């Protein structure tokens, strides 16, 4: 599904909205998330997931072809952690595997 399809689905579910409004709603949501991350803020959407910004320190990298050392300056990268509810839903649909107790899977899941 791409953004335009998401807009179409949102519009289809809300007959009172016109297409342009649906477009602006979807755009506003993603624009706000991007703006928050650009400020260094976190975005927490319970049940769905959380976006955050992680710092990567500067390091000495290597050109894989020549082996030359290259300075890589520090940068920030966006990070997404899937929310608990969505993580469980993703696995509930798969061949009905509900057997794994949530508490145990949460404990092992934190190791990686």
């Amino acid at each position, binding site marked *: 599904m791409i953004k335009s399809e998401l807009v179409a*689905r949102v519009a289809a579910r809300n007959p009172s909205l016109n297409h342009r409004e649906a477009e602006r709603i979807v755009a506003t949501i993603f624009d706000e*998330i991007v703006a928050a991350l650009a400020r260094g803020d976190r975005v927490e959407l319970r049940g769905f*997931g959380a976006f955050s910004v992680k710092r990567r320190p500067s390091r000495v990298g290597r050109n894989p072809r020549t082996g030359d050392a290259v300075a890589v300056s520090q940068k*920030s990268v966006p990070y997404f952690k899937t929310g608990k509810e*969505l993580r469980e839903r993703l696995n509930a649909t798969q061949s009905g595997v509900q057997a794994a107790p949530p508490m145990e899977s949460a404990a092992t899941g934190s190791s990686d």
Partner: protein
Amino acid sequence: MTGRTLTRAQLSESIYQQVGLSRNDSAELVELVLAEIADTLCKGEMVKISSFGSFQVRSKGGRVGRNPKTGQEVPIQPRRVLVFRASHVLKDRINGGSGGGGA
């Protein structure tokens, strides 16, 4: 951590202000957009949002894990995980580049 946290409340407030819907409708639409994305992903379909990033479901095979505290072996069942890949536009914005957002 000096950063604040953006939640559903601020997203629906922005829709209320920028699109001009009622506060109630704005909140419901935030929920609907997230639900549509989640439903699509649960079907195993990828979701691609241009100039934001893409969400993809990956299947992971089972493996033998270890409880890091006790060293005890624990079987990890095959599972599906959600992976987010940020677009270059988002990565650039986070690093202070192209602040205006050209799209």
